[in-house]
């Protein structure tokens, strides 16, 4: 028959299922902690000592919610770093395209989208950095703006390079890689924010 400590550790593992490595590490630590606490109880050995140790430890869901909130902070930091690198690389690639490609011969929408989608993404990014650092909506707007700018830049490269040279293709490949990484981080942040909100709601 399992005791209060075994039940608690099993329940905590389930609450931390969003991070299997953390769940496994913490289960061992928490079990050690609870057994120490139960052994220090005057009623040890008894189910009552185990129950009191578990009670003093706190709700597993609340502890999982704290870990989830910390994971949101880390993910937000990763997302902002990726966004900053993507902005710099996109800007440099945009300037290089102006040098490499003959803009004078074109009259399409691509250069306008390339420039203004980038400016919009940069503006939203700067405002969000100072005012709404954990805003998923602001990061999504930056992502869409940069995506539009990069797509327009690639359209320009295809249209005017006429069998685009290697350096143009390489700069586009760098931008695509970064925007892919940024999308991955923004989606990850959204998922973590939802999970944290759910755990907090359940813990109340």
């Amino acid at each position, binding site marked *: 028959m399992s005791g209060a400590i075994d039940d608690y550790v099993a329940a905590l593992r389930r609450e931390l299922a969003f991070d299997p490595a953390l769940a496994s590490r913490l289960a*061992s630590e928490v079990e*050690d*902690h609870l057994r*120490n*606490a139960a052994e220090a109880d005057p009623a040890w050995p008894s189910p009552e000592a185990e129950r009191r140790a578990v009670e*003093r430890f*706190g*709700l597993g869901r609340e*502890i999982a919610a704290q*870990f989830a909130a910390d994971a949101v902070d880390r993910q937000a930091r990763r997302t902002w770093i990726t966004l900053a690198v993507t902005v710099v690389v996109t800007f440099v690639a945009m300037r290089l395209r102006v040098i490499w490609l003959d803009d004078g011969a074109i009259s399409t929408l691509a250069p306008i989208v390339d420039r203004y989608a980038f400016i919009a993404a940069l503006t939203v990014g700067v405002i969000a950095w100072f005012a709404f650092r954990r805003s998923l909506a602001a990061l999504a707007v930056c992502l869409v703006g940069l995506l539009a700018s990069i797509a327009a830049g690639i359209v320009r490269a295809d249209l005017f390079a006429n069998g685009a040279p290697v350096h143009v293709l390489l700069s586009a490949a760098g931008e695509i890689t970064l925007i892919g990484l940024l999308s991955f981080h923004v989606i990850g942040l959204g998922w973590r924010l939802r999970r944290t909100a759910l755990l907090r709601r359940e813990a109340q």
Partner: protein
Amino acid sequence: MLGMEAEMLKGHLDAIVLAALEAGPAHGYAIIETIKQRSAGTFDLPEGTVYPALHRLEQAGLLSSAWTTPPNGRKRRVYSLTKAGAAALGERRKAWGRFSQAVETALGPVAGGGRA
């Protein structure tokens, strides 16, 4: 529901955990016991609260940890203060000193009695 001391403690938990490890490496249970003893029982948070703090501090490079197996045979994770952790503790002590002095001054009685 948490008391006022527990709510106030939450904002300073990371620094308190760093201070509890200043004397030497310890595992989670020993850390929470040290905190209780040093605060003479005033800080009585749910014991599990210390683990997210330990994890956070380790991620920030202020603590390091390793599994050990003591004579009783139960595997446990032992945390130690890193050089960066010791420096961060010094900084937080200074900041707390300034802050607590300011609060004490602001909350203290006005010299010369009440309003005119």
